[in-house]
């Protein structure tokens, strides 16, 4: 087998970075006075920080092959809950935040129980729980959208500027580093990827698959709670914001799984994908100003990312003669064709 990797520019694994650079170049030439400003950089970074945290929340269970479709509803719930506690119930900031995040962790724990103990398909389970969470949100909010808390500490929580960026950007990066560490540098992450790769093989290797799936869903909802709190502080309470986050988050994670460590969802690939898309959207908005761009862009990105992944798998399948399991021994000896597969760097430790 020619295990030596061909020298390459990494067009494959780093295509997101190239795409990002292309967007920057195109809009820098097209609308330099609007696009090439520190303001644009700061606003894109801050506007996407919440979406990035939600994408990371989606990523954690997805590494273990579990879908969490309740992220949007959980973010919304957290937004309303943290606001209501402060504005309507006069809680101070930190107790309200802690209570909200804990409640969201509880949501995740329940999701996890339904999936692990109840053995309900995660897609269905979290779709259902999303609806229930939305109902709880309406109960919490009452009829009207609550008023935002007035304290300056509350808005400073996310809006304080550091190096020109709103501090939320650094919160997001901190979360990204922690989740990257968890997934790529701890046994927990290894177990989670193993469950996502082949749950039965992982179980037979001694991985407690249920425990890690449960923990991943709990982590996901907790991160959504944090994202919701940040959103409420950044932009004020919203009854509908979270729902709009679901698709961009999945688009970023799937697109990100084609990056850096192809075939595995990963934190930095997700962030690259998210910010590359956001840059493209921002540039086009500066040029045209139409409203439907994000929907169109994110939708197409999701479709093309998944199609690309499928195409690539099939391509690989064609190149490699399938080792037939049911062949009898008379053929087996002649059948092994070591190394027909394409050598490909693929590891968790990028």
């Amino acid at each position, binding site marked *: 087998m020619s295990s030596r990797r061909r020298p390459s520019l990494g067009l494959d694994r780093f295509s997101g970075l190239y795409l990002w650079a292309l967007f920057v170049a195109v809009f820098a030439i097209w609308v330099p006075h609007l696009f090439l400003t520190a303001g644009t950089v700061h606003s894109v970074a801050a506007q996407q920080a919440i979406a990035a945290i939600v994408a990371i929340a989606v990523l954690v269970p997805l590494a273990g092959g579990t879908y969490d479709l309740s992220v949007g509803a959980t973010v919304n719930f957290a937004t309303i809950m943290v606001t209501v506690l402060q504005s309507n119930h006069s809680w101070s900031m930190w107790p309200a935040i802690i209570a909200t995040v804990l409640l969201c962790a509880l949501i995740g724990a329940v999701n996890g129980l339904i999936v692990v103990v109840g053995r309900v398909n995660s897609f269905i389970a979290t779709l259902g729980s999303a609806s229930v969470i939305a109902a709880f949100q309406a109960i919490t909010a009452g009829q009207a959208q609550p008023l935002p808390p007035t304290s300056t500490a509350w808005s400073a929580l996310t809006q304080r500027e550091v190096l020109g960026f709103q501090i939320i950007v650094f919160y997001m990066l901190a979360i990204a580093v922690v989740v990257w560490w968890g997934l790529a540098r701890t046994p927990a992450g*290894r177990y989670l990827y193993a469950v996502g*790769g082949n749950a039965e093989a992982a179980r*037979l290797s*001694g991985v407690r698959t249920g425990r890690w799936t449960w923990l991943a869903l709990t982590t996901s909802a907790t991160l959504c709670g944090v994202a919701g709190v940040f959103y409420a502080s950044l932009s004020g309470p919203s009854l509908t914001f979270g729902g709009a986050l679901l698709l961009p988050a999945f688009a970023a994670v799937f697109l990100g799984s084609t990056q850096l460590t192809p075939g595995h969802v990963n934190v930095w690939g997700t962030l690259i994908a998210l910010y590359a898309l956001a840059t493209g959207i921002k540039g086009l908005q500066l040029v045209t100003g139409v409203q439907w761009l994000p929907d169109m862009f994110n939708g197409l990105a999701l479709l093309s990312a998944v199609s690309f992944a499928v195409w690539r798998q099939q391509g690989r399948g064609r190149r490699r003669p399938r080792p037939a399991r049911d062949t*009898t021994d008379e053929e087996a*000896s*002649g059948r*092994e064709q070591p190394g027909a597969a394409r050598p490909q760097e693929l590891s968790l430790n990028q």
Partner: protein
Amino acid sequence: MGPRLSAGATDSAARGIPGGRAPALEVSGLRMAFGPTVALDDVALTVERGQVHALLGENGSGKSTLIKILAGYHRPDPGGRVLVAGRALSFGNPVNAASLGCRFVHQDLGLVDTLSVAENLFLTSGFPARWGTIRWARLLRAARDDLARVGLDLDPRQPVAGLSPAVRTGLAVARALRPGAGNVALLVLDEPTATLPDDEVRQLLATVRAAAATGAGVLYVTHHLDEVFDIADVATVLRDGRVVASSAVPDLTRTRLVNQLLGSELDEAHASSQALPPPRANAVLRVHDLAAGQLRSLSLQVRAGELVGIAGLTGSGRESALAAVFGAVHPEGGDVLVDSTPLRPGHPRRAIDAGVAYLPADRKAHGGIMSLPAAANLTLPDLRALWRPPMLRLGAERVEARSWFSRLDVRPAGAVHLPLAALSGGNQQKVLLAKWLRCRPRVLLLDEPTQGVDIGAKAQIHQRIVAAADDGAAVVVSSADVDELVALCHRVVVLRGGHAVADLSGPALSVPAVNRAALAAER
């Protein structure tokens, strides 16, 4: 609701079987080689209309190759000839095989559980429809005819999910014989009873007889000698790619058939060379009266340093034995003790912590995580040594994986970062074996450790298994390859019909002895 033999067999002439009175199948001069391995050598065979023709042979005798040639999957070497109802089969063409009237019922029956009997019958041939709407009355009528043809007394509206295995096989036979799908000259049944419980075999044999009575020739591949005497008119035995004998069943005795199957080795002159006396030590693994799936009762004691083989035909319970010992599946009864401590079933983690390692037979589905790097697969069961909080020591992991790669000669050398899927089957298997050897298990359970592995890798895997036993592990190997077991093990336990029927060791351990114990089933 057992199937019955249909009262009157349809007259073959009335059904307009193509080719007049030519035999259903005539094979002559068939030869096929895979590289240097000759799978079939000058094979000749004739299946008459209305006859059940049994095809027997050990694993590797060429049965599967012959069937795959008939199905148009393999293209034999030039010079051979296959006539189906008098018409020449064009090789390597599945459509041609079907249009000449060949029908196949494989072990995987291809039934859809959620659909009804009638829907399954029409799944392959298309539904009778008018204006795109299925004509249910006509469908049900035709389905009843199809079922009656093979003597199955079934409600065609019944879902397939609730049917017993034998009836399902019968249904697959009925579907293969549907006249709507073209005239049937030859029906090939590939080990139809391999996974059936004893009491259901009888039901299926009635269906096969009814199928032959429709005028088709039936080529019946089996391992079970009793079935040959129950239903076959003629039995052909393949050994090492050659037809050893083709005899009318009434002229046969069981002993003669066994002799034909196993050849001249029957004198047991060459007992296994490696059958060393097992070391004297206390039993590490004790299995008592274990039952799971087709395994009815297995009791076993394995001492430290001992290599014990488990042999048995498909359906003997051998396939589920080691999974049940490990607790990968929930056994229906029995105990497993490691060092006198009972193992709780269904908890692989606890079994591993107790020092048990289990290499499953199905590498892709249960063994490895194909998308993860080889190194990650290798270290998955035990990451403790690599976990220095707050970081997993990836460098140390790579070094350790490389050393295992070189110890087991995994190719490409040092490619520990490659996903497991990128390695060849033999190398994957070495990685998965290394994964368990790394845990230094006290009990090593190996299910088909060299299945689909090339000869070189096979020898290396065997060396490692022997070395593990020398280091004091209690090793149990389950394999369909009797030669492998005899060469490797101190002692071989033979399963038949879910029970251990022989425990061979020392001079009594030989390939023919194991084969005879596995075959001599009295159903």
